[in-house]
């Protein structure tokens, strides 16, 4: 187990977020950046409220809401009963009144009881009431694997939500992006699912689980403005420019791909999608037309995963530019295992093999 975060070992980040100062920009880990986004938005807009299991006095099991109840009071930052149906449903009702709720679902693996309220209600409210009612909520939830969390603390269910018309889905890959995207999500008038890759809460992860964990201090994405800024939803980020191949990734996999590409010495262009829906299709098209090759990497299972949608889009729009079949590198189509986590996880070996395959005739 050694260096990696042990399952749910949230104790290690028990300190309330007090980022290091450096002018207007400070060093933050992703939890602190998320905390800062909510703090900034609560200060700007009295209608923003934060709710969820253990988010109040305790400040959340990952400490993402630490200090907010003290600052903004119990009626704006409160613990909820343990019912995800209730949390989402109540947030929709509060949104209907005019508030801007930011509910937390403690782990994405526990979002399913809230699915009916999300899929049948939040997603369709604007449509079915011809805009009379909307659901301006941002559902935050830690997701993804790499922490020995077993099948109930590791899943990546984003594909369930991108399949639902009316929902937006966002996944940040750095503290800087997390804050800017979360602010944009809170300001958005449509329901947003904001999945936080918990494996990179404390630092970028290169996929080598057996090497010492890094923190955010050496990464430019760990420099975060203290005030308000937004990163528009629907805008991808080219994290590495390249000519040989386009890699589409998001969340933890952005960092794993980057490390693999550097190690393999391939001139890949890595696009961090940041928002899965609405998707930045222009950036993707432009890149694939240039490189002629496209690889899609996500932790989630393969079948009917978001990679299938990406693959179809690229094929439909860039077919005549493609020089090799599109590659999908994903988690395997099994429930998330416990002991064989690193055999399951789409790590450096799986990505490396896929790069060899797609570059074979280059």
């Amino acid at each position, binding site marked *: *187990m*050694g260096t990696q975060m*042990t*399952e*749910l*070992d*949230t*104790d290690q980040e*028990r300190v309330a977020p007090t980022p290091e100062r450096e002018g207007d920009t400070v060093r933050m880990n992703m939890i602190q950046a998320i905390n800062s986004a909510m703090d900034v938005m609560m200060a700007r807009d009295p209608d923003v409220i934060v709710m969820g*299991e*253990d988010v*109040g*006095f*305790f400040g959340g*099991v990952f400490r993402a809401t630490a200090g907010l109840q003290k600052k903004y009071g*119990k*009626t704006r930052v*409160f*613990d*909820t*009963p*343990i*019912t*995800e*149906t*209730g949390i989402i449903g109540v947030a929709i009702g509060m949104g209907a*009144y*005019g508030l801007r709720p930011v509910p937390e679902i403690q782990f994405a*693996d*526990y979002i*399913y*009881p809230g699915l009916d309220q999300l899929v049948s209600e939040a997603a369709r409210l604007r449509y079915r009431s011809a805009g009379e009612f909307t659901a301006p909520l941002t559902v935050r939830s830690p997701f993804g694997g790499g922490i*020995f*969390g*077993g*099948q*109930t*603390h590791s899943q990546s269910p984003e594909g369930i939500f991108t399949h639902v018309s009316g929902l937006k889905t966002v996944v940040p890959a750095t503290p800087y992006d997390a804050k800017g995207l979360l602010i944009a999500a809170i300001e958005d008038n449509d329901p947003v699912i904001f999945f936080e890759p918990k494996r990179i809460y404390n630092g970028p992860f290169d996929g080598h*689980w057996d090497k010492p964990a890094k923190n955010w201090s050496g990464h430019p994405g760990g420099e975060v403005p203290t005030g308000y800024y937004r990163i528009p939803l629907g805008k991808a980020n080219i994290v590495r420019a390249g000519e040989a191949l386009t890699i589409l990734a998001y969340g933890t996999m952005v960092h794993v791909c980057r490390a693999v590409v550097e190690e393999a010495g391939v001139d890949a262009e890595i696009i961090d999608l940041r928002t899965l829906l609405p998707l930045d299709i222009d950036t993707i098209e432009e890149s694939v037309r240039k490189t002629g090759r496209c690889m899609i990497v996500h932790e989630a299972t*393969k*079948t009917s995963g978001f990679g299938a949608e990406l693959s179809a889009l690229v094929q439909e729009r860039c077919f005549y530019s493609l020089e090799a079949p599109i590659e999908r590198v994903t988690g*395997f*189509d*099994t*429930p998330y*295992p*416990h*002991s*064989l986590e*690193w*055999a*399951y*996880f789409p*790590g450096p*070996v*799986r990505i*490396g*093999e896929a790069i060899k395959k797609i570059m074979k005739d280059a």
Partner: protein
Amino acid sequence: MASETRANLKPLSLHVPEPKFRPGDEVDFADVEVPPAGAARRPDTADRADSFTELAYTLVRVLDDDGKAVGPWDPKLSPEVLRRMLRAMALTRAYDERMFRAQRQGKTSFYMKCTGEEAVAVAAAFALDRDDMCFPSYRQQGLLIARDWDLVDMMNQVYSNKGDRLEGKQLPIMYSTKEGSFFSISGNLATQYPQAVGWAMASASKGDTRIAATWCGEGSTAEGDFHSACTFASVYRAPVILNVVNNQWAISSFSGFAGAEATTFAARAIGYGIAGLRVDGNDALAVYAATQWAAERARTNQGATLIEHFTYRAEGHSTSDDPSQYRSAQEYGAWPLGDPIVRLKQHLIGLREWDEERQAAMDKELAEKVRAAQKEAEKNGILGHGLHQPLDTLFEGVYEEMPWHLREQQRQMLAEEQASGRPWARK
């Protein structure tokens, strides 16, 4: 937002529950009502559920402050059974201590103790038949221990090692044993509740004699599954015992966030028209008696009983939290219902069937037994150190028969293993 026309009305205000004590606070539980042992009546098991609703608001207690068993709920167990019950509770505590420490030593990823709540599971297991089906939450390891389940087998699961019957697929402590009539534990709260009702309905529809029992924490009663289960249990008079373990805390949230400021958890039964009992959960005899009574109702087609076990979570929620961050450290010491092991011990000593020397000797023996079991289990490996399951087992058990795409992915994984150039490089 208040509109002009309503300006003469008083503004509304939102109530948000707050626990009595936070870190650093002096604790005084004077307002926790503890009725005297023996005071609650014991209705006939054939009585209508709505004829004894007061039992949902009191505490069924058998052991008084001196450790004497009093009143109509005294199950009058033989000293031999009492000693076995005490032993199972002490073994549960010793097992928890050991496994918690193993997690701290990095031997596994996760652990959860049931310290202070041992009576809830152990006494229930003694009152149920060995083949009555249990649908537990993650905090009823006492059921398995009371059923004499092999400690090494349990530890193998905690370590996800090569002796783990669950093949390293499930999070530690999420045991499963059909042979032990113990349903596969889920990490998703309260899902077991309707499943237990379904099992009980099936047993009834088949003319079987076995009943089901399920457990969830007080926090989990907020989940819709809990309420669906109560509705089905009521509608079909399912032969099931619905246990709510009210240990006052759900991670950092006190029971008020599940509704305890307004009423009891046992009182949930009243609205559903099922029998409700509120029991001193640190009194093994009361837990035994209530379970036995509920089992008799179930076996005679009187339907479900909801039992609230009033107890206290003595330690952290799991290895992942530090309770001193959100509750007063004094709480457990001040808890008015004491320690379930100490209380049963005191009872046996009062009967002159036990003494401190034998208790000390037993504790020593159990610590040794657990240590020996741990040694044995660790021969099968610990989490993260070596490959305990063949790689390709990852794909087994998703379906009864493996579809083509999984066979393909299985081959892909083995090829990756080769490509890595290191045997079991991703161990």
